[in-house]
């Protein structure tokens, strides 16, 4: 969040930050319009994740030391908490996807609280949407490949109901599985990051405004509350960032499994 630039547009009264926090101009004069802060740091985050895991697993030893220890902790966490409960015996085969998803999203989310960057990449819905669409195509491809092009679509429908009920239920099932499931998958991550960034911007702006910009006797207490809430919310946001990366990867594992095997 950029307190100064928001303040510069305001007048004498306190103005809460709005969605304009998420609009960025091109990085420099004459740059193409897509070259903004979020896109640059999205690529940067991906490179950081690559570098971390290259240094961990580029030259693996039998007895892990240094970075390899940390990398293996991450691997074991993703395998035991996300992979095994959902994918079972197929876990090893899908670990590269799950590892990349989890650590890329976590890195993007952590950018929200790193000074200078201070922007969660996933709060632009394009980024989670691309990841969710990728998972969606994997799901449908696996389903058609493993269960057959017709069986995959009929397996979704519960068997043994009276015929007229199917007319009522089948549209709900297909709309839910093929359109709304990827949509909610992306929106969960996006909405949490968007709201979290907004909350942090609001409280830090309250603190900045009432203590530094327009200090008054009455407003000072409000400013102190704003600063305290900023600290608390930053800690809370760091937890939410981890949780959302975990949930996104967990849902990806769930969707991949639903393509690999029929549900019942």
């Amino acid at each position: 969040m950029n307190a100064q630039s928001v303040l510069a547009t305001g007048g004498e009264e306190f103005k809460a930050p709005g969605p304009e926090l998420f609009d960025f101009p091109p990085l420099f004069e004459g740059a193409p319009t897509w070259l903004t802060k979020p896109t640059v740091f999205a690529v940067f985050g991906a490179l950081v994740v690559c570098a971390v895991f290259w240094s961990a697993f580029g030259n693996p030893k039998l007895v892990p030391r240094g970075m390899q220890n940390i990398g293996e902790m991450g691997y074991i966490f993703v395998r035991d908490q996300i992979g095994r409960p959902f994918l079972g015996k197929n876990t090893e085969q899908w670990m590269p996807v799950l590892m990349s998803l989890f650590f890329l999203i976590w890195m993007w989310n952590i950018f929200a609280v790193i000074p200078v960057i201070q922007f969660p990449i996933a709060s632009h819905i394009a980024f989670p949407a691309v990841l969710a669409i990728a998972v969606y195509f994997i799901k449908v491809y696996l389903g058609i490949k493993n269960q057959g092009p017709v069986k995959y679509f009929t397996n979704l429908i519960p068997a043994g109901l009276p015929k007229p009920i199917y007319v009522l239920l089948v549209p709900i099932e297909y709309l839910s599985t093929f359109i709304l499931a990827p949509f909610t998958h992306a929106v969960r991550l996006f909405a949490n990051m968007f709201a979290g960034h907004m909350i942090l911007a609001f409280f830090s702006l309250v603190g900045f405004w009432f203590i530094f910009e327009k200090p008054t006797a009455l407003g000072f207490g409000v400013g102190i509350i704003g600063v305290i809430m900023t600290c608390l919310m930053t800690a809370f946001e760091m937890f939410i960032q981890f949780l959302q990366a975990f949930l996104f990867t967990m849902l990806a594992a769930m969707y991949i499994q639903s393509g690999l095997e029929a549900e019942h």
Partner: protein
Amino acid sequence: MNEQNRRPEDGQREFADAAWSAPSYLLSGMLIWGGLGWLLTKWTGWIGFTPIGLVIGIVLAIYLIYVKYGRDSV
């Protein structure tokens, strides 16, 4: 999946599956049947069709989730 090779964690997986897909089932039920009710409202001019469609959609979505996930794990 037949009953012989059911592992104990399958119940947990199905439960997580159901819990995470419940909102999208409810939303799609509301969208389809509420949307149909909205179209009827546009056609006939009686506002009552939209809420009736929404409620029917929710009831059907809850029934679908119950049929898919709740019925066989008891």
